[in-house]
């Protein structure tokens, strides 16, 4: 299957070509190609177990693809480690929040900035003026980001584990933003949210894209969010891509309806 591209080549910030991932005997992802146009919001949808998160984990370097390649800004990053991918400008959140529970909200965001910091062992031991300045600037930036994602100031220095579910989601987004990504991968950001919160998040994703000039790739179950926010939707089922295109087109695709509702026999 070849990638369906609307944008000319080169305009895609990330491009996955013919990705295959096999776990033991199980083919979790089978020959999937995705283009993520720069400055767009792209959604991946599909039933549970369709391979969405596995694709995410390959794009962020956590899994090595069995076959296929991944290009980031036309640069082959297929076998790069997750921390290298992060340094190259890709950040993510997790389906079930993975904050560092025993760290404060601010500390979590500061850790998110690790890749953009330079203090080494000896600089940290000597705490040179340069390292001190960096620490101050990063802490200040972390507070700005937490304010940007809408966390109330009184929660900044609370431990992440003690924050409410919604606040934990906010901190996780701020932590991802701290690494100054060009591409942000959100794994089911609206899980556990009510319709008002989901709508607010939808607006926030547009704001992120426009203000921070981000590209966003989204795994999402909430169809209202998907149809509302995405320029493109990719539909997965059983490890393969069964449809791709603008939301309206995908919604009418017979294979998509079949995958979601089953066939009438």
């Amino acid at each position, binding site marked *: 299957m070849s990638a369906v591209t609307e944008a000319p080549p080169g305009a895609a910030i990330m491009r996955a070509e013919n990705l295959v991932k096999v776990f033991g005997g199980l083919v979790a992802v089978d020959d999937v190609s995705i283009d993520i146009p720069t400055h767009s919001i792209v959604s991946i949808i599909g039933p549970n177990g369709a391979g969405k998160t596995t694709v995410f984990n390959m794009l962020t370097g*956590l899994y090595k693809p069995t076959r296929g390649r991944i290009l980031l800004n036309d640069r082959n990053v297929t076998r790069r480690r997750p921390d290298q991918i992060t340094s190259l400008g890709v950040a993510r959140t997790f389906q079930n929040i993975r904050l560092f529970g025993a760290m404060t909200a601010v500390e979590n965001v500061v850790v998110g900035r690790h890749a953009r910091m330079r203090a080494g062992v000896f600089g940290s031991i000597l705490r040179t003026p340069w390292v001190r300045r960096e620490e101050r600037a990063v802490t200040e930036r972390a507070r700005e980001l937490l304010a940007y994602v809408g966390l109330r100031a009184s929660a900044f220095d609370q431990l992440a584990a003690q924050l409410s579910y919604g606040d934990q989601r906010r901190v996780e987004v701020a932590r991802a933003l701290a690494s100054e990504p060009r591409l942000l991968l959100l794994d089911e950001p609206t899980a556990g949210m009510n319709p008002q919160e989901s709508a607010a998040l939808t607006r926030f994703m547009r704001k992120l894209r426009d203000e921070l000039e981000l590209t966003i790739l989204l795994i999402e179950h909430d169809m209202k969010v998907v149809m509302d926010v995405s320029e493109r939707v990719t539909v997965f089922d059983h490890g393969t891509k069964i449809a791709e295109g603008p939301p309206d087109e995908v919604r009418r695709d017979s294979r998509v309806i079949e995958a979601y509702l089953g066939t009438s026999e």
Partner: protein
Amino acid sequence: MSIPGKETQQAPPPAPEEPRVAPSGFSELQAQLREWREAVDRRIPPWTSRVMPFVLVALAIVLPFAFSTDSGFIDATIKAVALAVMALGLNIVVGFAGLLDLGYVAFYAIGAYTLGWFGSDFFFKARVHVLVHGVAAAETGIHLNFILILIAAAIICAIAGTIIGLPTLRLRGDYIAIVTLAFGEIIGEVAVNGTDIHLGGGMTLTAGNLGISAVDSPYFPGVGQFNLLQLRPWYWLILGILLLVLFVNVRLRDSRLGRAWIALREDEVAAVSMGIPLVKTKLQAYAIGAAFGGMSGAFIGTYFTTVNAGQFAFGFSVLILSMVIIGGIGSIAGALVGGLLLGYINYWLLPSVLNNAPSKFGLNFQLTSVQFGIYGFLLVIVMILRPQGLIPERRRKLEMTGAVTPGLGEAELAEPTPEMNIGAIE
């Protein structure tokens, strides 16, 4: 944790604090103790916490003037401080980075052999003298100034720590412990059998159980040659090393690297996804921790005047690890207090004070012969009464009291799997 293939919603995290104690006589006692402690805390003015470290350092510096120059207590103190240095070094590996290391004795050995090689006439074919005086300057062999030996021990151990760390990178928890344990044993065996490793010219790698003796004692201008009748210079030297390792511990804990260690300890998958390089960050913990073990090892070598393969037994690794655990894993003050406590028990309380106590009860043994039994008993007592250690680290305390629930991860990703590309050695 979600059931695979079924999305579950995350429950909100549990409310903080609320000590969960079942009503019993024991917990009442604990509650009473907590009340007293809080009452004491309220009476201490806030500025004391800032002044306290300086007062303690000043007291530590003048301590030997209260004792004779060859006092047995100062002798025990010197050894206890040397062990506390090791405990603080191991604390970086076990406490900060969360890598259970059961082979720390390897760095004691390598540090001590650095002294044996570069501060004695052991390599008698060589004639190298750098900034040494007195007897050492006239002897054959390699003789470096003790400061240079300390630096060499730190560098050699940092390299050894990196090499020992490499194979553990893909492992977790118990498996790391087994690999490091094996390395500790390997180094010990090499030390014993080093007499058969010939370096040419009749020289061997180690002197095995015979020991490399007549090692140089430190020499400093103005102080002269250290000797065992004048213990004060030895004490100030190891105190200086202790202050250095304390300083490094504090600075690293509150640094970019310290946060990366905590992040990796809490959730490797999230940490690497935030841009923390797993291999480099873990190896830095091993290397820094090993460097301090080596410095202390070189000091103990010269203070004991011999480098003997029999010193490097598994029990030593356990002793140092017990110091870290009793003090409170990850806690700097804890490692210091745990190290000094077990050090004093080991070198002063048991041999000098209580050794013949059993005979008063008509029992025919000496306490020093059951010392490991006593440490084991202490460890059990601390683990039952105060599992977080004597001076728990803030974050670890939260983890242990249940205020923080680890394992928020997805079922699929809860633990890094060999599939994952995070510790790649390629």
